[in-house]
Every structure is written in structure tokens, then in C-alpha cells.
């Protein structure tokens, strides 16, 4: 039985009897119907996106939609690594909820496992009514927060990495951490950082503390289309 070149849809052979034409047409169109089923549906404003790397595997999604691509508890660990991050998305968003550490140390983030390069960052902080700015250059990591959190302060950190899958340019990484504190009532840090010596596509993200453990928290990685 003949098939089409690209999709492999079954078509009648030139020598097939015309009397079988109705069945042949039905077979051919059923193949098309099956292949294109993912194109059916959707709602106004949605866009078609790949659901996997498989041919013709599509899904309808809102523009700029978030897809959770990984999640990890941080309870009791010294280090969490998100490795082999696929380059299928436009941007990455890492959300870290309720994290705190056993020792009063920085929650550190390293990109692509590179700890011998140079990270630069600018962090604006608000602690109660006190405002501050911290400019730093660090060989090993980005500071996820401008201060330390050693108890469950209902913290939330959101980190945005735009254009992460493109090689050849420095990646802007932007984050915000908010938390309550014992005294005063709250702390917030808003920061922008980058690795000035690494222009590779981002395929791994590491969260760690220099001593002790991360006592609580969950890290969720989203891909943004």
C-alpha cells in the first residue's frame, strides 16, 4: 500500500480497483484525522505549542503560559541541582517557597555548575523601614536573598531567567525574595545578577548553602513559552 512522503498516510496504489475507492478515501482521511487530532480544540487567544518532542504532539496553551518542568523538596539537603534543563522554552522561572537554613548563611545559586567564574549582582533590600543596597562580585554564586533566614518566615523567592537557551550572550537573572522576620516585621530583596564570564546556554541550576543544610522549602522550576 502506498503512503505519503512526510506523514505516512495510507493511499491507494495506482493498480487498486476503483470499486475500492470509497474505502481507500476513508482510510486516507482517517489517517489525516488521527494525525491532526491535537489541532482540534483550543479557545480564543490560545496558541499552539509542542507538548513533547514527538511529531504532531501539540497542545493549546495561553501565550506566555508557565509549564512546571521540575520540582524538588529542599528539606534537609545541602544542595539541590536541576540538571539537563531542556532548551524548549523561552524563559525559566524558579519559585522557591518557605525556604530557610540551619546556619545564618546565604542561600546561593550557581549556574551551569560554574563556581570558578564571576557573578555580579546588585541587591536592593528593605528590612522593616530600612532601605539598603548591596553591590557584589562573587566568584562562585549569586545571592538569592540580601539577608539570611534561619526560621520558617513564609519566604518566597521568584527568579526569572530570560533567553536562557541561547548561547553567546550574558544572561540577566532577576529575583525577588520576600519574608517575614522576627524583628522588624518583614524583609524584601530585589536583585539583578549575571555571570559575566559565562555565555553558554543554561542547562543546570544549583541551590546550596556553604555550611549546614537548607531546613525547609520547595523549589519549583517552570518553563515559560
Amino acid at each position: 500500500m502506498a503512503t505519503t512522503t512526510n506523514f505516512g498516510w495510507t493511499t491507494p496504489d495506482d493498480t487498486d480497483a476503483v470499486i475500492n475507492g470509497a474505502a481507500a478515501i476513508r482510510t486516507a482521511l482517517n489517517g489525516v484525522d488521527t494525525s491532526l487530532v491535537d489541532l482540534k480544540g483550543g479557545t480564543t487567544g490560545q496558541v499552539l505549542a509542542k507538548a513533547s518532542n514527538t511529531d504532531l504532539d501539540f497542545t493549546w496553551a495561553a501565550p506566555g503560559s508557565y509549564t512546571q518542568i521540575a520540582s524538588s523538596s529542599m528539606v534537609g539537603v545541602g544542595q539541590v541541582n536541576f540538571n539537563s534543563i531542556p532548551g524548549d522554552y523561552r524563559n525559566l522561572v524558579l519559585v522557591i517557597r518557605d525556604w530557610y537554613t540551619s546556619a545564618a548563611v546565604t542561600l546561593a545559586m550557581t549556574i551551569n555548575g560554574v563556581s570558578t567564574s564571576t557573578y555580579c549582582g546588585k541587591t536592593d533590600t528593605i528590612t522593616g523601614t530600612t532601605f539598603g543596597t548591596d553591590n557584589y562580585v562573587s566568584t562562585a554564586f549569586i545571592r538569592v536573598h540580601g539577608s539570611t533566614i534561619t526560621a520558617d518566615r513564609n519566604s518566597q523567592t521568584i527568579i526569572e531567567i530570560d533567553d536562557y537557551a541561547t548561547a553567546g550572550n550574558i544572561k540577566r537573572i532577576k529575583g525577588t525574595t520576600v519574608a517575614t522576620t522576627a524583628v522588624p516585621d518583614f524583609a524584601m530583596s530585589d536583585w539583578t545578577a549575571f555571570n559575566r564570564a559565562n555565555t553558554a546556554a543554561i542547562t543546570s541550576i544549583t541551590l546550596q548553602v556553604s555550611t549546614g543544610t537548607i531546613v525547609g522549602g520547595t523549589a519549583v522550576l517552570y518553563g515559560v513559552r
Partner: protein
Amino acid sequence: MPNPLITNVNVSTGEVEVREMTDAEVAQREKDYEASLASVAPEVEA
């Protein structure tokens, strides 16, 4: 006292590995932190 745990998440496959950090990994994170305490002069374009 055991070393802290390390969690490795393979985002592409979904595989998760949880194990104790090796002595070398513990030493490396402390080394990274010490190195980061040292101020690095920013590069200035000539």
C-alpha cells in the same frame, strides 16, 4: 556526623537522585564560599 544530602533532579527525564554529599563536595562548597568572600575587582573596558 553524616554529610548533608544532595538532590539531583534530571529535568529532561524526571529522574531524581538523593544521596549523601561526598567529602569532596562538602569541601568544594566551603571553598566556593571562601572564594566568594574575596572581593573581585570589576573589569573596566579600556
